[in-house]
C-alpha cells in the first residue's frame, strides 16, 4: 500500500475507521475473544417443559450430532449456559423454569422452542398455559414450528452463536438484571403470592 500518496493515506484512514480495528474497540478485543470462546462451548440445560423435548434426543445423538458445534447437554442448571424451554409452559412448570433460570450462572441465554412459547400456539385458549414466554423470562432466540425440526433447532443454535460472537444484541441476562422489576411484575401477576423469592428474600432467609 503506497503510504505517501493521498490515496494511501485515505486507505489507511479507512482501515483505522473500520470498527473492527478502531482504537475505541481495542479494549474489547479480549471481550471479543471471550465471546468467541463462549459461542463455541454452549452447555445446554434442556428442560423438557413440553412436546419439544422429543426432538432433543435426535439432535444430541448420532444423526444430527449437535456436539460438533460445541453444544453439549448438562444435567443441572448451575453448569449450564443455555436454557431450552422446549414447548408450552403451564403455570406449575413456569415457576420451576424461572427457578432453574435464576440458578444458572451468567452469562446465560434462553431459547424458546416451538410456537407455543411465542404466542400460545395450539393452546392459545388454554387456561393453564402461558402465552408469551418473553414476559417472564428474557428470550434470546425463538425457534418456531410445531414442533421445530432438528434442522431448525441447529439453525437456531447457529444464529445464537452468531449473536453471542458478534454481540449483535444485548444479551437477555443483562436485560433480566436491569429490568428485573418488569419481569417480577409479570410473574407476580400470574403467581400472586406464590412467586419465587427474590434474591434479597433468599439471602435474608440464609442469614436467619
Amino acid at each position, binding site marked *: 500500500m503506497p503510504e505517501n500518496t493521498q490515496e494511501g493515506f485515505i486507505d489507511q484512514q479507512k482501515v483505522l475507521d473500520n470498527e473492527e480495528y478502531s482504537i475505541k474497540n481495542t479494549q474489547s478485543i479480549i471481550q471479543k475473544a471471550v465471546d468467541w470462546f463462549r459461542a463455541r462451548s454452549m452447555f445446554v440445560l434442556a428442560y423438557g417443559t413440553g412436546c419439544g423435548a422429543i426432538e432433543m434426543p435426535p439432535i444430541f445423538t448420532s444423526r444430527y450430532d449437535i456436539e460438533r458445534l460445541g453444544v453439549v447437554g448438562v444435567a443441572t442448571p448451575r453448569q449450564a449456559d443455555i436454557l431450552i424451554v422446549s414447548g408450552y409452559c403451564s403455570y406449575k412448570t413456569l415457576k420451576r423454569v424461572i427457578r432453574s433460570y435464576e440458578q444458572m450462572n451468567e452469562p446465560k441465554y434462553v431459547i424458546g422452542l416451538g410456537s407455543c412459547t411465542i404466542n400460545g400456539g395450539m393452546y392459545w385458549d388454554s387456561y393453564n398455559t402461558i402465552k408469551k414466554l418473553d414476559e417472564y423470562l428474557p428470550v434470546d432466540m425463538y425457534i418456531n414450528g410445531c414442533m421445530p425440526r432438528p434442522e431448525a433447532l441447529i439453525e437456531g443454535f447457529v444464529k445464537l452463536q452468531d449473536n453471542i460472537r458478534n454481540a449483535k444484541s444485548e444479551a437477555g441476562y443483562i436485560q433480566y438484571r436491569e429490568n428485573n422489576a418488569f419481569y417480577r411484575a409479570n410473574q407476580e401477576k*400470574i403467581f400472586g403470592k406464590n412467586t419465587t423469592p427474590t434474591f434479597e428474600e433468599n439471602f435474608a432467609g440464609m442469614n436467619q
Partner: protein
Amino acid sequence: MIEFLKKHYEIVEKAPRLYKLQIESDKLVEILSSVSINSNFITLSQIACTDWIEDEVFALNYILTTKERDKNLMVEVRISRVHCSLPTLLNLYPQAQVMERDLHEMYGINFRGNDTLYDFALENWNEIPPLRREFDTLAYVNEHFDFRIGREDNKDVKAEVKRRKAQAKESKDGK
C-alpha cells in the same frame, strides 16, 4: 358371563363387546361389588364424567373391563350438578384413588371416603373447576393474558370469505 349379568340388570349392547348399564347413584357400590364378584368384569379402566349442563346432571361412566380384557362394560350413574357427591370405590379398586382425585379437581365432585382428594394437576387454582361447562376458558385467557400483536384469533371469518368471493367473481366477470 355377560348372560348372567343380563338376567339381573338391563344391559344394552352399544357396540361389539361394549355394554352399557344405567343405575341409580345410591346403588353404585352395591351393584359394582356384586358385578366384580359374580362376573369377570373385575377391573376398573376409567371413570369418565360428562357434564350435561342442560339437564343439570353429571353423568359418570365407570368403565369396567373383564379379566380377559376382551369386553368393556360402562356403568352409568347420574348425579346432580349442585350437590355432587358419590361414595368412593377405593375399597373395590385401588386405582380409583387417582381417578377420583382427577375428577374432584376437574369437576368438584366429592367422593365420600376418599381422603386423598388434594391437588392433582392444578396448583393454587381459585376459580370454578375448569371442566365444568360454565367455566369459560376463552374469557379466562382474555382476562389473564394479552396476545402478541398479529394473533387476533377467533374472529368471524365470514365477512372475509364473502369479500374474497366477491373479489373473485369480479375478476372473473372482468375477464
